[in-house]
């Protein structure tokens, strides 16, 4: 993390521009929701600030995950493509830990701060939130970040076999898109898949619902698949490391 900060300081203009673009991007993303509500319609049963709350939680979670796990995919992909992954394997460290520790993505700080700003704005408009709801939110937010971490690891694991495909991340992004909106607008099958199989509902929708006191007892069951998903990501990554065939170093 320290070296990432030093690196950002060396290329500070690039860092500032990247962070600003990410920040502006996140201001523009909820614009679609604003325009929908401005047109006099809505997501049934959801107010404007409630939807913005979902989207802000999603952005915060993405930012946090991107800070810690964002570089895993690109670093793994680069090493596999160049055939230099064995250099990491030779180090006296857990390779996954080494990659995570050395790819702290400081550029994503704009994403995280953009999410926090939007979250504060939306939370101020949804009324008072009791302490218990904040605790529920914290638990679900951590679970949602675990889902994103699991997805990053799975995408990185795919890159061991699907060498040099820079579009792998689009696969995860497309599925994550579901988590940016209220889950009840989707059919039951999609809702079930988004809470139990690839629990993207936990990234934005369920933590925000916890703050709004809209969760049911059954929703808490979705926390377990999130951590199983992360465990699956770690396991698949390790499994692919074992299958790695290098060409030198």
């Amino acid at each position: 993390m320290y070296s990432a900060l030093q690196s950002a300081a060396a290329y500070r203009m690039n860092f500032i521009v990247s962070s600003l673009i990410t920040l502006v991007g996140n201001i523009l993303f909820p614009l679609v929701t604003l325009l929908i509500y401005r047109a006099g319609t809505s997501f049934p049963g959801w107010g404007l600030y409630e939807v913005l709350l979902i989207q802000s939680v999603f952005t915060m979670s993405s930012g946090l995950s991107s800070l810690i796990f964002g570089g895993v995919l690109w670093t793994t992909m680069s090493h596999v493509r160049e055939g230099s992954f064995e250099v990491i394997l030779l180090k006296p460290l857990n390779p996954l830990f080494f990659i995570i520790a050395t790819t702290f993505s400081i550029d994503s700080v704009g994403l995280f701060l953009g999410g926090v700003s939007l979250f504060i704005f939306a939370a101020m408009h949804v009324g008072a939130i009791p302490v218990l709801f904040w605790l529920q939110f914290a638990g679900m937010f951590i679970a949602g970040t675990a889902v994103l971490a699991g997805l990053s690891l799975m995408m990185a694991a795919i890159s061991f076999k699907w060498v040099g495909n820079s579009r792998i991340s689009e696969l995860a992004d497309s599925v994550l898109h579901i988590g940016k909106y209220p889950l009840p607008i989707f059919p039951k099958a999609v809702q079930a898949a988004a809470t139990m199989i690839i629990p993207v509902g936990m990234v934005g929708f369920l933590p925000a619902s916890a703050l709004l006191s809209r969760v049911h007892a059954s929703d808490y069951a979705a926390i377990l698949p999130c951590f199983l998903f992360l465990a699956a990501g770690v396991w698949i990554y390790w499994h692919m490391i074992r299958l790695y065939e290098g060409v030198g170093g």
Partner: protein
Amino acid sequence: MNSLKQKWLICRTVADVTYKEWSAYRSHSMVSIIVGPVYFMVQYFIWTAVYGDHSSLGGIELPQMIRYFGATALIGYLTMDFADWNLSMLVRTGKFLTFHLRPIHHRSFALFQKIGHRSLGFLFEFLPCLLIFIFIFGVDMRPASFPWTILSVLLAFLMNFYVNYTIGLTSFWLVQSGGIRNAFMLVSGIFSGALIPLDFFPHWLQMIQFFLPFQYLAYLPAMVFTGHYSLGGLELSSEQAVGIQAVAMLVTLGFNEFVRRLAMKQFTAVGA
């Protein structure tokens, strides 16, 4: 006549070589077969929920909206471009110099490359997604007018190329144009109408779109596809809309040529 024939031969050869080169990575293109339908499915449910009891929003009915998002996705596969990234890389690495030694203008070369690359996109992205939209999602993907839609998509193809090439030309001053590229992609994502039709924007913002390149890349061709173009309170026929798009494309080409000439004066190289 001979000159035209020679240019056609060069175009065909460059496009053919690019097609073969990228065919080795066709699975990259095939990611769209998963990503495109998933995005479309999400849009489908979002807008089905948002319409609720409304028969029309922003002057657009739900089936037309679904067709619109299907069209923007498919048009995106036909017009996708990264000429800016490519040119920036050539400038940064100094390889642009070699194009001064070739008997072909680099911009033409890049355009022919794009034709080859998108031919591959047509086979491995456009056609599979078109079939998925028609047979799995049951969307009517027949354009209101085939000739005007094809012409509009062709103009969007050229417009996208010239805009991106202009962004790539900024590398002659900045060396690394990644920041401008990201900024443009960000703004374009919103104002091209790929996320939400421009009818939903405030009136003044809709009017500004006539003077910016964004709507000509996705919104206008998608609306020509649906057969109902309106923006800023103006309702235009397909012929009129495509006419405006053609003018915008020519202005962009002119601006691109102006920037290119300035950029060439800026160019220095130290060896091939």
